């Protein structure tokens, strides 16, 4: 029992050291600067309403910024797999291939969480910078207060960050590197693809649920807030199912490190 209780501490220490190492690397500063550039890009585009909450809400719904942000996260994962992946002397101590995949995944999710937190903080900072005086609480298209809508948007955004990062990270473990590269390219195209929608969806149908995640983040107006929540949850569950299937497939067969 004592041995079992000490194991998580060692995993935590290992993860912390990977993250510390990552934060000291140039790539982290380059990515943070790129995220800053993205927040500037969206903050200085024309806004019809000069209100802090509206500008913050708008910041998380900018399709171009969101697409580029996810491309940065994918680039971050590719960097980790090339330059920072676990060395053999760590893996030999892990015991199983499953444990190795899981540890890698946890570190990547932490790294991308840090980038996401930077994205949120910079968006908040930029919104204050653009509208330093108008903090009046206004309502969204669903007639709910914007702070509530923003919390929902950020929460949904983070869930997509986790699911998409997991998927890309797992795909990079596929033995056939050609297949994993082709998948990553297709996935980036999928991320950039935006269906030709008006800004409003009148009825939920099967197609609504399989829109790319970036479409969900770009403030399409559903018939009601409840409908948006339902559609988002269904879409998230679809990604979750894909993640679980890929994870199970990956850990089934050990490949060269």
């Amino acid at each position, binding site marked *: 029992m004592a041995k079992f209780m*000490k194991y998580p501490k060692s995993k935590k220490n290992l993860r912390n050291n990977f993250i510390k190492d990552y934060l*000291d690397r140039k790539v982290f500063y380059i990515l943070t600067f790129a995220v800053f550039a993205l927040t500037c890009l969206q903050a200085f585009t024309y806004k019809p309403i000069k209100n802090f909450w509206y500008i913050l809400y708008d910041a998380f719904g900018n399709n171009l910024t969101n697409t580029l942000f996810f491309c940065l996260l994918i680039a971050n994962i590719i960097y980790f797999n090339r330059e920072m992946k676990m060395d053999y*002397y760590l893996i030999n*101590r892990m*015991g*199983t*291939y499953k444990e*190795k995949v899981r540890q890698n995944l946890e570190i990547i999710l932490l790294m991308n969480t840090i980038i996401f937190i930077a994205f949120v903080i910079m968006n908040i900072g930029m919104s204050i910078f653009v509208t330093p005086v108008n903090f009046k609480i206004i309502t969204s298209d669903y007639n709910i207060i914007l702070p509530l809508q923003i919390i929902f948007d950020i929460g949904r955004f983070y869930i997509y960050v986790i699911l998409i990062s997991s998927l890309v990270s797992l795909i990079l473990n596929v033995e056939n590197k050609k297949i994993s590269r082709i998948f990553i390219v297709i996935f980036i195209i999928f991320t950039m693809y935006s269906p030709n929608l008006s800004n409003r969806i009148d009825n939920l149908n099967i197609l609504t649920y399989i829109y790319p995640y970036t479409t969900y983040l770009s403030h399409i107006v559903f018939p009601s807030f409840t409908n948006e929540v339902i559609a988002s949850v269904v879409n998230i569950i679809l990604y979750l199912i894909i993640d679980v299937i890929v994870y199970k497939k990956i*850990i089934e067969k050990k490949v060269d490190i």
Partner: protein
Amino acid sequence: MRIDVKNVTKKFKNNVVINDASLHFESGKIYGLLGRNGSGKSIFCKMIAGLYVPTSGEILYDGVDLNKENRYPTNLRALIEKPSFFPDLTGFQNLKLLAEIQNKIGDKEIDEALSIVNLDEKQKKFSKYSLGMKQKLGIAQVIMEDPDIMILDEPFNGIERVTVEKLIKYFKKKSEEGKLIIISTHITDDLKDLTDEIFEFDNGEIHEISKKQKKSSK
């Protein structure tokens, strides 16, 4: 402890690095793998360590094919190519972090391992280490947990003679205690007097070129 390599072939695309190799290793012996650079010694070491999966054939650890079970041999430690430790941690901290994963040893054993490899500056950050010091730390991570199997690929590169001699004595002692040790090198002199059996790697083929009678078996 016994490792059986049965008809193992390793290919990368169409390049055959190891071709239908069959050999076995057993406890209480030191094995030498000899061959020029690029002859496949490191790839072979990685397969023995469970890090590379054979394209065909199997590697059995006491009769068990760990690759089929998606496991790594946890009683095996290896030094293959240069290990990339955390640059901001000292040698001691790096080893402690590794030791915590299986939680078998404490600070005393880590200190002993560092002392065996003559790595005195244990409080220096890894990023400030010379090539020789990095190599010594790599060997220390192999020996510190006193594993059943030790695999060392070109272990004496960049290490001064006095430490090499100390390590040779250490490996001989460990072999007598029943450990299985595999040392790979491209320098024949490194293996003289140290190994019980030597295998030569040449164009994907592995041949046994020397076998010593163990004193105990006489």
